[in-house]
């Protein structure tokens, strides 16, 4: 169809759509723009001027720019002792890296970040792919820009070439977003997505959430950057503007409308690597400052769950530090976790656990979890009278609570709290010496004034 006929047909269709109540009616007057070929040519010129070079690939052209960024000042500012190492990346990704030292260099890893036109679905176009390779203190960043959306295939091949074969892929939320988005575009362009399956994937968002969700709230990269690294970007283009800017560039705006997006992408890559380094240091004991009340507790839980060999008792150290803090609910969580560890060790450690649990329960008689652990430990230590006193007091508390609240309590034993306490009391009453008054103030009951240790 000739261009004039085409324009007439479009106008007629638009009028009809407007009459039917759909669409936006007649198109708002737009400034006249050159034809598509001219616009495309200008985009290429703008990209070239910004440092993007055309590379023949896959029957087309991929536009790539390489920049080397010195991460040293950012690492210093963030309090990281140095760039993240392979062992640290493995630890972040998998937990305990084990006794073996990885036999690959940091430059065998790559950090990935995409700028896209949407957030979900197979049709989301990735118009800028940033891939960074650590080289010492520097990050070598390759950015692949989609100058012509019709030439997506060469751009994808260029991005894939820089990812495939890596030992480790580092991203921020890449497991949910960047990798699936890239995979979708590969499939839609009939390219094999197997190249995305690298050795390991360290999605830095996961440890950030585990360790810092209490202090951050929303765990966006920007917030993590500000609160954990102390880095703030000035005058940069927010990520949410990226789609509109790219579309404007497609329609003929100058490259300057896009430059901020390209810089934003570059900074995201740098921030991800610096964040990885800082997290690694945090796991090794160099805590992010200032220390949030939940930090030590979350760190202790993370270390324990990730199976890290507890060299030097770091988990316990963090728990004790939290318990000593008495700054909020975290001290109770930490006290429970610490008591649990001490009880598992038994012996003198269990005696310490009893004291800790006694104080926990004493400060909050409704903490049946603490009471139960206390009663069990007392029984194990053959302090039957005290165990019975605790059990009877707990039973009174139980009977005073409604079933809904009881059912919602953590750690409920099989058969329910009340039945469990009744059984325990019955068993303890039959123990020798159980009926004797316990030595010293009765833990958790009696007329002795409570010894406040915890804030609530």
């Amino acid at each position, binding site marked *: 169809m000739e261009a004039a006929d085409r324009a007439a047909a479009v106008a007629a*269709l638009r009028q009809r759509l407007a009459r039917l*109540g759909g669409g936006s009616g007649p198109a708002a007057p737009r400034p006249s723009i050159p034809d598509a070929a001219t616009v495309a040519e200008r985009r290429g010129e703008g990209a070239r001027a910004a440092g993007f070079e055309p590379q023949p690939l896959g029957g087309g052209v991929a536009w790539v720019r390489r920049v080397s960024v010195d991460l040293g000042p950012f690492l210093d500012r963030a309090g990281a002792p140095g760039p993240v190492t392979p062992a640290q990346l493995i630890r972040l990704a998998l937990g305990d890296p084990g006794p073996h030292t990885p036999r690959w260099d940091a430059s065998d890893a790559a950090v990935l970040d995409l700028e896209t036109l949407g957030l979900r*679905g197979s049709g989301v176009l990735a118009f800028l792919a940033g891939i960074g390779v650590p080289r010492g203190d520097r990050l070598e960043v390759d950015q692949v820009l989609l100058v012509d959306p019709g030439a997506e295939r060469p751009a994808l091949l260029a991005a894939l070439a820089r990812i495939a074969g890596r030992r480790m892929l580092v991203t921020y939320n890449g497991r949910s977003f960047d990798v699936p988005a890239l995979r979708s575009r590969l499939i839609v362009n009939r390219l094999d997505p197997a190249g995305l399956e690298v050795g390991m994937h360290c999605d830095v968002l996961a440890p950030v959430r585990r360790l810092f969700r209490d202090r951050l709230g929303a765990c966006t990269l920007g917030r993590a950057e500000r609160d954990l690294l102390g880095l703030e970007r000035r005058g940069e283009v927010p990520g949410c503007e990226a*789609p509109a800017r790219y579309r404007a560039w497609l329609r003929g705006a100058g490259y300057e409308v896009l430059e901020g997006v390209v810089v934003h992408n570059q900074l995201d890559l740098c921030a991800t690597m610096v964040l990885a380094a800082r997290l690694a240091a945090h796991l090794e004991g160099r805590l992010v400052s200032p220390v949030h009340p939940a930090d030590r507790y979350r760190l202790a839980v993370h270390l324990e769950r990730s199976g890290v060999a507890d060299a030097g008792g770091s988990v316990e150290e963090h728990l004790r530090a939290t318990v000593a803090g008495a700054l909020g609910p975290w001290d109770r969580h930490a006290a429970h976790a610490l008591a649990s560890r001490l009880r598992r060790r038994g012996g003198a450690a269990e005696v310490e656990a009893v004291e800790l649990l006694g104080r926990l329960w004493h400060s909050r008689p409704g903490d049946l979890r603490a009471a139960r652990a206390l009663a069990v430990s007392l029984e194990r230590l053959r302090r039957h009278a005290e165990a019975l006193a605790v059990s009877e007091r707990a039973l009174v508390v139980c009977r005073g609570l409604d079933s809904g609240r009881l059912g919602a309590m953590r750690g409920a034993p099989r058969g329910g709290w009340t039945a469990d306490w009744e059984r325990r009391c019955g068993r303890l009453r039959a123990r020798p010496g159980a009926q004797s008054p316990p030595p010293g103030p009765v833990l958790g009951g009696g007329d002795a004034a409570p010894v406040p240790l915890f804030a609530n």
Partner: protein
Amino acid sequence: MTDSAGDLPPAGATAPDRVAAALDELRRLPALAGRIVHEERIEARQARHAPWPAALHPLLVEALHARGVERPYSHQADAVERALAGRDVVVVTPTASGKSLCYILPVLDAWLRDPEARSLWLFPTKALAQDQLAALGDIAAHLPPGLRAATFDGDTPPGVRRAVRQAGHIVVTNPEMLHTGVLPHHTGWVRLFQQLRFVVVDELHSYRGVFGSHLANVLRRLRRLCHFYGSDPVVIACSATIANPRQLAERLLERPVDCVDESGAPRAERRLWFWNPPLVDGAMGVRRSATLEARRLTTELLRRRLQTLVFARSRGAVEVLLTYLQRLHPPPAPGRPGAVRGYRSGYLPLERRAIEAGLRDGSVRAVVSTNALELGIDVGRLDAAILLGYPGSVASTWQQLGRAGRRETTSLGVLIATDSPLDQFMVRHPKYLLDTPPESGLIDPDNLLVLGGHVQAAAFELAFAEGEHFGTADVGTLLDCLAEDGLLHRSAGRYLWSADAFPAEAISLRTACAGNVVIIDTSTMPDGPGQGPHGQWAGSAGGRPGSHGRVVGEVDQFAAPVLVHDDAVYIHQGAQYHVERLDWEEKRAYIHPITVDYYTVAETRTSVAVLEIDGGPEGGDCRRCHGEVRISRLAAIYKKIRFLTHETIGAGPITVPEQDLHTSAAWLAFDPAALVGLDRAEVETGLTGLGAALHQAACLLCMCDPRDLGRHAELRGAKLPPAIGVPVAPLRPSAVTEPVEQVAGWRPVGERLDAPAAGWPTVYLYDSVPGGVGFAEHLFAEHRALLGAAVELVDGCDCRAGCPSCVGPPAASVDARRSTRALIDIALG
């Protein structure tokens, strides 16, 4: 499951002669005298079997034998054979004829031969989907292990979704989920699309009108993706009896479809009773409550141990009748379920499953249901089905009646008429229901509003190539339009999606455009949005008082000023609501329940402008056409009308702007010269009555709800004699005029194209959906049938000079029936 599966006898099975004897006894009851205005007996039918298709996997045949299915019915064998041969097929046999085997067997056969084979099953409701999975499980239990079948819908947990995507052999879903949850995320379903062998579309007849038009486009997108991934699945569809199943299937699938419509399933004798409640006010045409009639009849049937299903038109009617019946048949003990139960989609799934099971095992003796039980959920077979009011279409009527019917015993179907004109027509003209083929299912996949949204969704899924069609639709201009708007980027001969929106989300499969007015029940006020077990919760961003509540429905913008204006009494599901406020800017109407003795009627000024004539004019004294029109309607005031007495007890203003609707219409224009003998008042009354009669007849023909069509009558500037018998020179029709000027297809405002019949009295029937869905064109094509039905309606009415059941209320001094009939005669030539 299937009839061939050797059913267990129901609890308290009734012998054939006992059921027939019970019905004979009922007919003789003095209390029921005069109510059964017609009885029809449909003869029994023997089963017709056929051998298993030779191509069927032997393991599958063994499994069926183990399940007690020795040989298939003829229609099952036929359909399976065609599907195995790679032919698309639509199976059109009655309820409980074992249609599900027609797709279960080919799917299982494919899986047995290739463990990677996949299939996609589409059901209009989740309940149906669950039911069919259970049926599949019965057979699969006798096959080698490893078959993975699961539903994929809004309730599927994330972990299960992943498993279904990666490894599900049979994915059972619904159109909405396919539209937003599968197709736009197709790269997560690669294995499904690559190995897709069968697509099952159940309840095909439900995909008509706007919904069907949308589904046709969803199927276009599905086929497009299948082509991309290299598969070409066979489609197996199942449909209730409609007039044009093959045509509807071919319109939906856009390729040839075989039709299997000779049922081999057996059926015992069936009796149909047409039941008209007695008049209580002959002058006003008011009859005894149909609900009370249903109560009486159900009670008599239960007394004779006949298991009964009652279909009511609305949830409110279900609850009312259920209350009556449960008072007479209370449960055995407090807290224990009784033998009389209710059923509607608002009940919890577990409760509904229990009722369905109770019907099957006979412990539930009667159920009062909405049309939720019309669709093929397995509830066994019952002795009697009562329809409380005409369901709105012949096809639905037979679907509901078909719920009764045991293999060995007589069964009963009863249609109890309410006061409504359609009901009265059906019960007075039983032959219409018995002899008329079920309505046609009509769709228009190329309705521009529908098509436009799906082209965007398709472009999001895969770029369009220049010149590529979307199904059979040429979408080149549409793609250019979208590119001009910046939604697509055109490059290297392709159109790529370049917006940041998710286009599928903007499309509702049940409406033509997104600009509906949402109706919110403020009496439901939850603690914040998102609460409550049923329906959707609407929250206003502004936290406006009364803005939180349950969304009970939607109405299009054109109808909103008439139906939900401030202070209107709005009827929803049979219940009354008061409209507190219509927020026109936000497109929300806030209502709360009310019980009053009046209703409201909006008075409107309507005008019609013909924009394009696509068919006609045909005829002489009455010229008929169809084409594109603009309906302009201004609702200015409303009146409050008391029930029964029809006195006006109040009025108020309606302050909503004039609304325009661009749609398709069919119209009849009468040459004034042919109207000699009728004065102006008679023509005016006749036109109005003709519009009413044609509207009702059109609903019958098009298988649509009365709200799917609109009507309008215009006297226009015709000079008509002031009194009968004074002839005047006939008016010459205006000369045909071409549009003055066309600039890029644009016509000057006010240009009217309805010449050559400009100035003639005209009656219009139009699609209520912007852009139309094909009703008007169908009515134009079937004008003789339409007029014939209108004749029956008018002639068959018992009123004297017009009533709401035929041509509308009588005019002051004009015999509306006579005037209407005169116009129909002219139209028939």
